[in-house]
């Protein structure tokens, strides 16, 4: 099952793994060891950076800035994928996390590589921000375009950066801390108008917060086991159900699992942020220019693998 979750939103497979594992752990009533929690938090935040870089890169690409900004984002994302390869041998479909922990501890070479990445990324991020944040064309095309008022966003069940860009301070990592999120400090950036520009800036600011979390994880992590000794085939008690929820890069991702005591879930419903964030699309498009259509769609950052699941 964990391998299937990689394919949902293939730009943030680590976070998908995490949501599913949390749901299974809730079913079984177990908790992973502390080191596994930190490893999960840290890789999930690296994945969030990679996913936001893609979102921002394609958003700008859709505005007509072909190639350059996208390649800037991909350059940094590539480094993150290299780190994932060191952790689990895969770059995109990672399947790194398991119910009860993670697949394996990080190899010795991983930590210096992570430090090098963090050091270089500082400059790379500054470069991307310098290029885009106050870019005149980008601002003219996106400021004030397709704003989402807070009430509309809530009523449409929108979540994640799109909800926060509309000025609502809501992040599941803060509201219901899972894994090691209660051990680290970070801020929840929020926007004011909820227009396309705010959604873009929201993601850029979240990247900074993710970096903060990764640094704290490195400082706090301690040696220890990384996986509980669970049987290979898990049989949660019949009739139990769980709602495992995380703040994914695109919004609230949840697995609603119902067990019948067998080896596979009786029902596994995926609450995917991409599908439900699309509800807002009518509000985003009606009354606005045709030329802004693709840009507005890019600003909610959907992933088709997760829309049709």
């Amino acid at each position, binding site marked *: 099952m964990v391998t299937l979750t990689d394919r949902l939103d293939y730009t943030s497979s680590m976070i998908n793994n995490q949501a599913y594992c949390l749901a299974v752990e809730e079913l079984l009533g177990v908790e992973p060891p502390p080191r596994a929690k930190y490893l999960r938090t840290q890789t999930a935040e690296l994945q969030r950076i990679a996913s936001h870089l893609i979102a921002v890169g394609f958003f700008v690409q859709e505005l007509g800035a072909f190639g350059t900004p996208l390649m800037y984002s991909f350059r940094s994302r590539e480094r993150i994928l290299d780190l994932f390869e060191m952790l689990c041998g895969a770059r995109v479909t990672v399947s790194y996390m398991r119910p009860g922990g993670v697949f394996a501890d990080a190899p010795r070479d991983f930590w210096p590589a992570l430090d090098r990445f963090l050091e270089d990324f500082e400059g790379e991020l500054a470069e991307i921000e310098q290029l885009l944040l106050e870019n005149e064309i980008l601002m003219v095309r996106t400021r004030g375009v397709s704003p989402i008022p807070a009430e*509309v966003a*809530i*009523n*449409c*069940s*929108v979540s994640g950066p799109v909800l926060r860009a509309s000025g*609502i301070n*809501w992040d599941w990592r*803060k*509201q*219901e*801390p899972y894994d090691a999120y209660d051990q680290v400090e970070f801020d929840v950036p929020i926007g004011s108008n909820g227009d396309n520009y705010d959604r873009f800036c929201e993601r850029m600011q979240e990247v900074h917060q993710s970096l903060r979390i990764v640094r704290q994880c490195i400082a706090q992590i301690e040696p220890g086991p990384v996986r509980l000794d669970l049987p290979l085939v898990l049989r949660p008690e019949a009739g139990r159900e769980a*709602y495992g*929820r995380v703040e994914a890069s695109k919004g*609230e991702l*949840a697995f*609603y699992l*119902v067990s019948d005591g067998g080896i596979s879930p*009786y*029902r596994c*419903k995926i*609450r995917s942020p991409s*599908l*439900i964030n*699309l*509800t807002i699309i009518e509000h985003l498009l009606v009354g606005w220019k045709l030329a802004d259509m693709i840009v507005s769609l890019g600003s909610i950052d959907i992933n088709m693998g997760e829309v*049709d699941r």
Partner: protein
Amino acid sequence: MALREVSGIELADALNGALPGAVQVFDEEVVWVQPSRVNAVAEYLRDDPSHDFQFLNSISAVDYVEYFDLVYHLTSLRQLSKAVFKARVYGRDDLNVPSVYGVWRGADFQEREIWDLMGIRFTGHPNMKRIMLWEGFEGHPLRKDFL
């Protein structure tokens, strides 16, 4: 600072006071409401200031062969609480449940998905069409007796 979980007993008490007859059964965790009154329950839970569930997290349908359970997960962003209510629908054919589209717009695609894959129709939904499969597809593939 996790969210407060509103228990089934608490929810059933409130619903019995405001909408007599809407609750079918309840236990400590969840309450089952009359399927025909789902939208009334939804509207009450959204508008009543002590509950204030403005955010619909998800609607799921679970097929237990003799019946279907519809599961509604709710969150209140102001009260910092969460709740679950369910509705049990018996039978296999011609199932109808009132839509909560008018209460939470976020139900739009989720109700269409349930119709498409589980075959429960939502009355009052303005666009009750299949969402993933094409019109003319026969059957509802997530049912346990499909194929």
